């Protein structure tokens, strides 16, 4: 009986993975040189000053670099429209979903989120000063 139910649960699981595929790749700016097809979750640190307006035609423009690892030179420009989180600013680590088109990462509207200091963690911007 138990074995049967476990098998049923497993079947549901395999059904899902075969239909819906296996998740979205999480990449850093330097990975885009190799992997640039399809939907991507891009993780990076904001460098330079963001320009434009996320609620106007053209959208918000900012540049991301790798948040960790040794490929510190890689940069990718991002264009974005939609809600901008409160904590978004230069130096913050952000996650954004979208696709790479002609060297620019075009984000899906409203997918920008910052890795926010949360209930357990000290505010990192303050730590470094």
């Amino acid at each position: 009986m138990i074995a049967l139910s476990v098998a049923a649960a497993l079947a549901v699981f395999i059904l899902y993975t075969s239909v819906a595929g296996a998740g979205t790749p999480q990449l850093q700016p330097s990975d885009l040189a190799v992997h640039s097809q399809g939907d991507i979750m891009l993780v990076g640190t904001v460098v330079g000053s963001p320009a434009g307006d996320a609620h106007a035609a053209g959208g918000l423009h900012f540049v991301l670099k790798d948040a960790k690892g040794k490929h510190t030179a890689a940069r990718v420009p991002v264009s974005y429209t939609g809600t901008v989180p409160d904590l978004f600013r230069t130096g913050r680590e952000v996650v954004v979903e979208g696709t790479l088109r002609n060297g620019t990462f075009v984000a899906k509207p409203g997918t920008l989120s910052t890795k926010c200091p949360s209930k357990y963690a000290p505010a990192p911007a303050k730590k470094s000063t």
Partner: protein
Amino acid sequence: MAALGRAALLLSFGLIAYALVAGSFAAWKRRRRLALSAQNALIAAFGTTVVAALVLWTALWRHDFSFVYVADHTSRTLPLGYRLSAFWSGQEGSLLLWLVVLTGYSALAVWLNRRTRDLVVWVVPMLAGISTFFVFMLCFISSPFTTAAAPADGAGMNVSLQNPYMLAHPPLLYLGYVGLSIPFAFAMGALLSRRTDERWIVVTRRWTLAAWTFLGVGQLVGSHWAYVEIGWGGYYAWDPVENAALMPWLAATAFLHSVMIQEKRGMLKVWNMVLVALAFNLSIFGTFLTRSGVINSIHSFAQSSIGSWFLGFIVICVVFSVGLIYLRLPLLRTKTKLESLVSREATFLYNNLLLVALCLTILWGVMFPVLTQAVRGETRSVSKPYYNFFLHSFGLPLLLLMGIGPLVAWRRASLRALGKTFLIPAIASVVTGGTLIALGYGSSIPGLLAYTFGAFVAASIALEFVRGTRARHSLSGGSWLGALVELVGRNRRRYGGYIVHASILMLAIGIAGSSAYQTVRERGLHQGQSMEVAGYTLTYERLQTRQEANAVATRAVVDVSRGGSHVTTLYPGKNDYPVEQQVSNEVSIYHDPRNLGDLFTIADQIDKNGTLFLKVLNKPLVNLVWGAGFLFVFGALVAMWPDAVEQRKLAERYAPGAAAA
């Protein structure tokens, strides 16, 4: 001051380590006096840990910035309430809170059960073992009492933590997380002392219920916090850190149900051990997830250095619990077998399998980035569609089972009797489904299923109450209300459970309504312009600014009307915190009594020229989600309330003579 804190912690470390070593030795060699001494040391450790906690609280209260912790997490302008809650806004303080709760629980649990000595004798070193890890971390790895030259002012508190919920949400979660240590320690203690009857379950029933209630309420409070404070209009995002609290809660839910089968029929002994170990290990794993930065979460931080310590601790806990259960397998054999697939036991079993399946698929989703990195060298993550799929495929059958289970007889139910009892709930669900389709709510299949199943559950719970009350009324006469109160009072566990079921049903209705049938609109507005959302007209009138204690508050004044008549005025806006150099969104919500929903407004962007970019969500039935929390606590309290009759029965059952026979 800091020296006193450090000394108190070191003393706790000594006492706890003594309780672990001496307690294990005493239990092994059956030394009664030594065991008693270990027990007293564990109770004393609560006292010394409280002293350490008071030192930290005093420092926070007095703005003693020579404590690095105080300087990092508070500032002079921070209001007193938040200053005191800064205790758990950082890593060191959180660990200390964990230890305070753990030693407090341990002292109470050990003291309450001091008479059942053969069981407690191994529980003391088990609890001391868990405490050792935390007190070690606090003394040597991550001390809240590190000092430095005091700066003129502190760094302040992260603005999203400056919310009344901060006072309640983390402590509630800790009370829940840590509470799971008690049934775990008693279970392992029972295995170690070879007392594998259901006594450990009986002794820890209320502990498990309490921990589970705290964990559930803690999560709901956190959801409500995210809902009103973070300002994206949702309350659960399947973020790894949120899942970290949901997984042990699901495992504990399964455990709460399956122990009833062991109590009633002596079955599932191994399974219960596995579940209690799973729930405990998941609670430690949750803390690890939050702290280590292994998983990319919007909550977690890679900077934290204590992740690997937690990982080591988890490995020890898992190996220990799996190994011990394996060694004691011969003692856990059951004499009774499942008699029929259509019985109360069987529905409990289905419920268990679905809960554990849901729990494990969530765990798989959380671990997915790490697994794909290890196997394919590429990090991939799953998101909302993955979790929603499994919530639907396992959660909806669970909902239906909640209605079926109570109607099915123990041991073996006849299909004919079932047909009779199912008639009314089945009619209720068909009528509800038909009505919803006729009204045009068939657009969302999961939503429709949730409501038809929900009607079945509601009817079946109502039926249970009606039948019971009628029986009691005919037995003792008096008023109907009196009969109902007496019914619940005499079977607190059972009817408390039904009340909790009703609250879960309310939660499901609220979640389905606010997700499957919500409306979202966003638009840029100049002053005087309006927008329409779900029958409401929202007019942006003007901006206003005022100075608060530690922030500059900007608010858009938005008039809300419906059918030409004024409904309310909303004030969405932003707060600017100069010390913390952060801006936070302040949402404004109108609770609509007509559909028990919310009109949720977010000032997404306010331009310098005064143009407002307004985001509006209409979320029907969402207030049922929060209302369910109150009903949940009430039901849990009914089920937990001390019962003199039950106590007497237990005392007879486990009297020294009876146990030996």
